[in-house]
């Protein structure tokens, strides 16, 4: 038996459970993720900065954690973790420790033994909202008071907290599952020929791995790097990465994107897609409880094919607001929301979902090749 913990939502709902990981208190926007695997990737995904993640699948930690399945340096980025059960006895040939110890090591507070389905249903009907997990304060009313003083997630520029401090180059490709001995350590992808500048708004490593795999020489820049500085390096194309929070708060990036799109082929993913939308004069809107999972069907409107995608976003681009300069390329078949767009004249396209997977299906990884082909087409 662990220590008692409370989760209190801004609407006053209280869940009593058992703390795991670090002890203490944490706050954030509570969202749910429907992926059944990939908790380590989720926890280390910088897009979860400012959020407490609830997993809808009940048994977490079964395969432990390892050195490889991380999506960012420096450990867990989510503010807190809510699960039905965190497994204390991981079993997997690559496991190097338990989820619980991992949470402790990175000083992240978690709560288990609560009805995560009831919580999910609540978030579904009442929307994502701020919440607090505490193993210290056992008074629901006191916790509720604390939660109510919290500003919403849109109040901050969370990108600043997760972007890299200095530019760096990346040359690790996707994993190859070759014959044993494993583990599937990083290997170089195809011969790199094109130079790519990547804006890190909280980038997931798997995007970088896929870019290398697609044949790019990748240089990663801090989010606040001015467009000019990037253009000075004379890249063949620019990628705007995923990241946390409300796109409207990342004004400097919107500014940079506005300049870049007229100069270079640009590919945006998730927050990068939203920033592109804003840069091109459109608007974004917030979803009730966001999309977080690995099973959303997205239709490629050009081919009519459906891809099962990895999703993690709370905001969407209203493509109609872009006034005909931009065409909708992908839609989410669950709720009809925008999942991708391309500029009608410029070599610029973006998607809301995560073609890099990690976690989630690899159905959309071909988009990295599409980006390369786009650049090559422009070059010709």
């Amino acid at each position, binding site marked *: 038996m662990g220590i008692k913990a409370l989760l209190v939502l801004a609407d006053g*709902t209280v869940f009593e459970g058992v703390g795991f990981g670090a002890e203490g208190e944490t706050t954030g926007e509570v969202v749910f993720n429907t992926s059944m695997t990939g908790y380590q990737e989720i926890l280390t995904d910088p897009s979860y900065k400012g959020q407490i993640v609830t997993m809808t699948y009940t048994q977490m930690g*079964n395969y432990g954690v390892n050195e490889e399945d991380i999506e960012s340096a420096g450990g867990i980025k989510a503010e807190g973790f809510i699960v039905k059960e965190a497994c204390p006895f991981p079993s997997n040939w690559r496991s190097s420790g338990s989820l619980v110890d991992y949470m402790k090591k990175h000083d992240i507070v978690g709560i288990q033994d609560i009805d995560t389905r009831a919580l999910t249903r609540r978030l579904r009907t009442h929307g994502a909202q701020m919440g607090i997990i505490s193993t210290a304060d056992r008074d629901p009313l006191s916790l509720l008071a604390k939660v109510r003083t919290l500003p919403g997630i849109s109040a901050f520029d969370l990108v600043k907290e997760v972007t890299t401090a200095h530019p760096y180059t990346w040359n690790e490709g996707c994993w190859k*599952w070759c014959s044993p001995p494993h583990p599937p350590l990083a290997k170089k992808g195809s011969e790199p020929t094109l130079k790519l500048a990547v804006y890190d708004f909280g980038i997931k490593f798997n995007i970088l791995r896929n870019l290398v795999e697609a044949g790019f020489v990748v240089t990663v820049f801090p989010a606040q790097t001015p467009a000019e500085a990037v253009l000075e390096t004379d890249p063949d194309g620019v990628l705007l990465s995923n990241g946390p929070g409300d796109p409207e708060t990342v004004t400097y990036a919107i500014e940079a994107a506005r300049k870049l799109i007229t100069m270079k082929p640009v590919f945006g993913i998730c927050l990068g897609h939203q920033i592109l939308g804003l840069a091109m004069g459109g608007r974004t809107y917030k979803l009730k409880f966001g999309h977080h999972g690995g099973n959303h069907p997205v239709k490629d409107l050009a081919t009519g094919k459906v891809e099962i995608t990895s999703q993690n976003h709370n905001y969407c681009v209203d493509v109609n607001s872009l006034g005909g300069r931009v065409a909708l390329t992908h839609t989410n*078949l669950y709720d009809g929301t925008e999942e991708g767009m391309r500029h009608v004249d410029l070599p610029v396209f973006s998607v809301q979902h995560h073609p890099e997977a990690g976690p989630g*299906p*690899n159905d959309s990884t071909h988009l990295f090749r599409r980006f390369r082909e786009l650049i090559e087409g422009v070059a010709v």
Partner: protein
Amino acid sequence: MPKREDIRKILIIGSGPIVIGQACEFDYSGTQSCKALRDEGYTVVLVNSNPATIMTDPETADVTYIEPLTVDVLERIIEKERPQAILPTMGGQTALNLAVDLSEKGILEKYGVELIGAKLHAIKKAEDRELFKEAMTRIGLEVPRSAAVISLKDGLDAVRELGFPAILRPAFTLGGTGGGIAYNQEEFVELLDKGLKLSPVRQVLIEESALGWKEYELEVMRDRKDNVVIVCSIENFDPMGIHTGDSITVAPAQTLTDKEYQRMRDASIAIIREIGVDTGGSNIQFALNPENGRMVVIEMNPRVSRSSALASKATGFPIAKIAAKLAVGLTLDEIRNDITRETPASFEPTIDYVVTKFPRFAFEKFPEADPVLTTQMKSVGEVMSIGRTFRESLQKSLRSLENGSYGLEPVEASAEKIKMKLKIPGVERLWHIAQAMRAGMSVEEIFDYTKIDPWFLNNVKQIVELEERIERSAISGQRSEKLTADSHPLTTLREAKEYGFSDHRIGQLTGMTESEIRRLRKELGIRPAYKMVDTCAAEFAAYTPYLYSTYERPFYKAGARPDVSPQPESEASPTDREKIVILGSGPNRIGQGIEFDYCCVHAVFALRELGFETIMVNCNPETVSTDYDTSDRLYFEPLTIEDVVNIIETERPVGVIVQFGGQTPLKLAVPLEREGIRILGTSPDSIDRAEDRRRFKELLHKLDLRQPESDTAMSVQEAVDAARKIGYPVMVRPSYVLGGRAMEIVYDEDSIRSYMERAVKASPEHPILVDKYLNDAREVDVDAVSDGEDVVVGGVMEHIEEAGIHSGDSACSLPPYSLNEEITEEIKRQTKALAKELGVIGLMNVQFAVKKDEIYILEVNPRASRTIPFVSKATGVPLAKIAAKVMAGKTLKELGFTSERAISHVAVKEAVFPFDKFPGVDTILGPEMKSTGEVMGIDEDFGRAFAKAQASVNNRLPLSGKIVISIRDEDKPGICDVVKRLYAAGFSVIATRGTAEFLDGKGLPVEMINKVAEGRPHIVDLIKNKEIVFVINTVSGAQAQKDSFSIRRSALQYGVPYTTTVAGARAVVSAIESLRKKKITIKPIQEYHRKG
């Protein structure tokens, strides 16, 4: 993409009778696909030989043929119906194999019929081991190193390369029939020889052993636009080496990281594309080396399967229905998800619970069979259960099995025996694992013996550890008012329920009764919450009330009044409608199978027609009853008193139907009534009156009806005395048994003594019944329906085999083929008198024996019988539906069913046996039921109907050739007529010495052949050399049975048709005579029913 307009009529091939490896799941898939295709506007022609299916109901398809699943019959159906397409992926391996045959014989081309779903090349690529291996290598996937061999010599060469242990898999066989693991050369030669014979293409795959590796399955769907989705991942608790049908399996996969899961997902997508399954579902199996993650592809089934039924029930994604729609050109994004309504079927279900499938075995029926689990499937059924954690779902599955277990009960075993039980997988391995843990064995050591992933073992260990805490918790003797919210016993009890412990098991651990635990639990407010299976982990609202129970934690509003004790969130939200709960029949087993699911489904249909809300409770994932759109509400729950009462307290129905699901719900009738729950239909007291020996005797006495002389015995001496008084032979059995369990005919005192020693051990509280055995009596089954006022006979069936052979194993004919009118009428009169006296409301089945024009009553069962679907299909009268309506208060007059439907055709039911799955088991029939399923032959006369039934159980009757006869003395007088008729039909006859001499004496000279013990060439040589076209072999006495065992076994092995009774032989001769005169009729049952 719009659906195809060039196709209008589609033929669906069913899977035939229930056998090990092919059970109700194909009724589920067949029914779904019929409905789906008709909804899309296609005309559906269905062929299946199994009458006990919803798919063969006259309403399910447009045109339904209950005919043998043979190439000849299918060709005639195709010729007559001229469908544009065949959907071969819904009827298991049977349908797939037939499609291959039809295609290769040019029949499809001749009639311009297209295979939809899976084309011939895809089927072959998936099924032919060599082609499959090549295909996998092409897409960069590994398969276990292997060689496909067609001879013993090739095999020996191959195994020298691959090493021992080696796995053998014969190509194109059911449930891995004939497969196995060879640890040495001798075993290898034996298995290979058998495998080559069993494989229809004489090909066996010798494979590198991946024994002990982790085993996974993925269910994949693909549409015409090449969209692919994974419906479900399944991880096996039991590692490689045990057939997945015999393994405990869990969904979703538990111990794969996302990277590893996606790798498997990518591989699955690549495989379905490479194999070229155009549309529909496939099942792909993988093995993973737990030490280094090396992944190999084991096999792919390019069709819906048992696992896809499980995946459908586990996720709410109806694979078969969607596969059918994809086959006609719709794409996944054009099909709606029924459960969420707003989202399309082009998605991957995500679940927020754990599903456990647990196999159910029937080794008690086959004491000679080797009960070790191998790569050949041996289980006869399965249960599925759902819980929020693996522990909860595992424990729910244990009590769903209905084999007397309510949890991980301790087993008596020495340390040595436990080790053995861990190393050699058998039915009770899980219980031995728990016992090993109790004895202090570490998870590491258990892993060394079992190779079961430590994650699973640690979960079992948590259960065992909690058991200790429950024992020490001092729950017993507690009074609820003294327990505060944080008191130790309360939290332990709550935790126990969250771990899935049954009240029964908690009672055992605390020395209290189950009902005391239930009362305590209720007083403490520990009640289950119901959660929905919704395909999406609550991301979207769901509209289909498909529910499971769990014990969850409550939540509350901050600052809520402290006196309001919070309850967990339940999604049951019962309606205010008038509702009826129908209890299903649980796992398939011998004696209780699909027939009862058929009845339950009919009850649902009928009650819905009357405007009731129908609520189904069942735990068998293979069935139509557990389809989320069969009933209004589905509770996927164990059928125990605890789980059923919880549902009833939630739903508050007007009543419960226990009559249709066989013994499983019937056993609950009295306890439910005790809880104040209304049982609809025949009262539990009337049921007791029919089942209690003493009360039954009084009943018959009152009605002046006769029964074979009988007595009861509590001890060996009493049994011996009773038998002497009654006179041998006698039939002995324990009271309250199903399927003739432990029932035997004994001819002398020694046998009864040895029987009593075995039987009394089996069932100590119940007396042993000793009945006069009426040898040479004809047995008759009658099904009737009664509303308390009127009784209408549904059908009178005369058995082919004599009384003494379990009615479930006998063939039977409707109408009777040899009884005279007078006897039949008297039987009907007696049936009606019994129904009236018992106050039957609903169905009743009576078994009679007729000996020398005397009628004896053997048994009365005031409930749905195994023959209900057969009678309904034969006559066109939906008896189960009528009965359900009667139970809900309608009268037979109101329903317009006041007289028996006379028919001018003949329907014959035949049983199918699992002998081919159990090497070493004799094929002789007796009072203990051994069949797993049934078929129906229907035609204008008895002979042809019987011949069709035989063809349907793969016992194809010859029209010429040499027949071998070897029979016991008692049967000899009866055989003369058979031999005369065989001669008249142009057969030659060869007989063993005694039989030949007897026939010679009667002026019927026959050729003579040695028995096996008499030197060579002997009878088995002839069978092996295929010189024999039919075997007639009857025996009595253990020694004679042993001596002639190899005759029957080799007949089975070499596919030579046989009979083990003279009555059977007579029927065979009649059939042959008919067949020689006329061709069998090919006619849909809708036409038979119209004619009446």
